[in-house]
């Protein structure tokens, strides 16, 4: 049995057609739906692989407004036995350190697992700091950029393969430990029994996701016993000086639209291309 906690975050849905910007090019949060951070899906797949192969429990945790319940629901569709949301007005404006403190304290209250798994960076902040800072606060050894995991339950250790640039490194770590999955992480199921268990677990977790309430808990700062000085904006040493919008590239030449479906239109296109080539 190997127990895992997976950290997840709600991020703006940056997909074409979903994302909306204000006139000043900043994100229109009101119009843009919040979804599960894509990298966290991979972290959940890693936890599911461990569950399939070794049993145990997968707990999903997140910090954010109460509306993030839908994000946890999305996470549970991938996999989760239960889900916790750390939610309090005081937690607002947290930087990565304040977030790591909150997550770490939450995990201690839940009960520390054998493995904590986080995805590689969030789609909005992109700092990649929360995972390592949480590991540091928990005093767990950390393996980043993990593309495959093997757990040796007898010797209580993990053998992970990590992508270091173009090289693949094999890292051994004692349990408990902290894993950050790489976007290239791939679960491997070479046994029919494992694949059948995967299907069963998938079916069960989808049913749980649909009726999340029985496995969902929200805890505020008091319930978590958090030091008010270490959470939210107050607990965040990071100072964001300025955010600069990436300017739109200037148009280098004027484009001419030629419409029509007949040969004449085609001839016109050919003519224009020929002219452009001649200069």
């Amino acid at each position, binding site marked *: 049995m190997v127990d895992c906690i997976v950290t997840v975050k709600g991020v703006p849905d940056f997909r074409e057609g979903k994302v909306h910007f204000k006139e000043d090019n900043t994100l229109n949060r009101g119009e843009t739906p919040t979804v599960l951070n894509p990298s966290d899906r991979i972290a959940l797949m890693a936890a599911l692989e461990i569950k399939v192969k070794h049993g145990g429990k997968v707990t999903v945790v997140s910090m954010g407004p109460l509306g993030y319940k839908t994000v946890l629901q999305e996470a549970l569709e991938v996999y989760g036995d239960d889900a916790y949301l750390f939610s309090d007005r005081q937690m607002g404006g947290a930087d990565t350190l304040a977030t790591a403190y909150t997550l770490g304290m939450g995990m201690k209250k839940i009960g520390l697992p054998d493995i904590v798994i986080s995805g590689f960076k969030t789609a909005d902040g992109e700092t990649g700091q929360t995972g390592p800072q949480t590991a540091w606060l928990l005093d767990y050894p950390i393996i980043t950029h993990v593309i495959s995991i093997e757990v040796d339950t007898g010797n209580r250790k993990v053998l992970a393969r990590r992508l270091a640039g173009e090289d693949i490194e094999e890292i051994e770590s004692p349990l408990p430990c902290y894993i950050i999955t790489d976007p290239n992480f791939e679960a491997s*199921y*070479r*046994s*029919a*029994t494992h*694949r*059948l268990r995967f*299907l*069963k677990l998938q079916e069960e977790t989808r049913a749980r996701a649909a009726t999340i309430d029985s496995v969902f808990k929200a805890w505020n700062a008091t319930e978590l016993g958090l030091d008010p000085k270490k959470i939210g904006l107050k607990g965040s040493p990071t100072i964001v000086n300025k955010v600069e919008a990436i300017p739109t590239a200037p148009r280098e030449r004027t484009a001419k639209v030629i419409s029509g479906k007949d040969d004449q239109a085609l001839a016109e296109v050919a003519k224009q291309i020929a002219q452009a080539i001649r200069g």
Partner: protein
Amino acid sequence: MEKFEAVVVGAGIAGLAAAYELARNGVQVLVLERGKSPGQKNVTGGILYGQSDSPYNLDYLFPDFAKTAPVERRITKSFMHNIAGDQVKTVDTTPLHEYKTKWAYSLLRGAFDRWFGDQVHKAAEKNGGGVLCNVRVKGPLMENGRIVGVLCEELDEIRADLIIAADGATSDLTRAAGLRGWGRPDTWFQGVKVVVKMPTADIEKQFGVKGDEGTAHLFAGDVFGGTRGGGFLYTNKDTLSIGTVFHLDSVAAKKTEPHRHLDRLIKHPIVANMLGGKYEELEYSAKLIPDGKKMALRSPYRDNLLAIGDAAGQMKAAGPIIKGMNLGVTSGILAAQAYLKAKKDNRLNEAGSNYASALQASYVGRELFNSGGGFMKGIFSFGPTKAIAEWGAVNTGMGMNRAIAGMNDYALASIAPDDDFTYLTLPVRIAQKMGQKVSAQAATPKTRTTDERIAALTYDTDIGREHIQLTDSSVNASGRAVMTCPVSASDSSRGCYRIETVVDPSGKEVTKVVLDTQPCVECGTCALMAATTWHTPRGGKGVGYQYG
């Protein structure tokens, strides 16, 4: 090493029937399917029959399948359209359709096999088994010269007491186990089909059916340019299945791309009028169909590997009526029961021989291995007899009526020789002598081009791991594939096979066959028509039919 009591390879109708019978009798059964879901690789014409002379039909497994399974329509009427130009003589072949038929339903394999797969998975889960998709079985696992399990591409080897090869017409497993080879072009039929959208109200109006009723229409005559075979149109709930089936050697000999016959049939006034001026193609598909007379394995087992359905070459053609799926269901149930008996008798290694005997004693054996049929066929094909028959059929009114009556004679239909007389001469003469001119009352359907058909299919391509390799790209060795491949065409820019003339480094022009496996529909035609190494793509890769 992993071990399951039984492994069934292929979640088609035969494999699922076997697995369900095993699972509900307490056997731990694992079904391995290379598609992303059951049915994704499967194509039928198609009508599923229940045989009145066998208890082992689909209703043996699911007594109320007609209510619970996604079948399309109960086929209550069948017609044979004999065509000579625009002259058509339609013969009511309902008696032939009803011969030894308990029931008949049109169906589409995408929806049907998915449903069937769900039932099997639920039943198998209870004994620690289930249906796993995205797994390709490469061949048998051998130990001391005996088959003891299966080798998979995506999984480690699996041992089993019973292995059922239900991996279809192109079966990798039966070939790897040495049960059969690819055969020859004349041992196969090739079928191509389109599924066409038609609202239920239009189907009821155009075909005069109501409720769950449906009709089957069969076509023969000169509309196929002398290629030996015929066409069909079956009504589904809100679609039509329209297709053609030809002897593969005839397709090759006539040098006509198979889809052109299909298009010609769809555009013929008799079919165009049925379509009523509307034509919306949903899906194009193709498959090889074993000619059961020549392909059916009389001893379809080796050790505890038992082959069923298409993998064992089981197909029965009674004139224009082609039965395949029901043979698969029956042989699947028989194979499962043969194992159960062997287990009960404590003689596990007798599963294969139990199965062979049960098959022989069933209608499958009677229909496919019946030597009497061969004898009668010999007489029928014998020159003078044929000439007399032809003269009688063609030149006297009585002969004509007898010929028409003959179309409903099951025994006669079963032994009709595979020659031009059956496929062309007789239907054409009937149409000429007794038919009426059919004029187009609706706009001619605009069929899709091969490029459009390929573009409308869904593929998960496996670039860099091509499942077919050309071993000889000379036109002499592989040129026939260009014409016979159902997803290649002379006017196609994106088909599988092309002939290209290139200038080699020495400045010499070289004409050779070029293969692109991306649009492949995995029918197996080119395994017979070109010099290739051919196997199915790995799990989850390749074409994925929606309707089938």
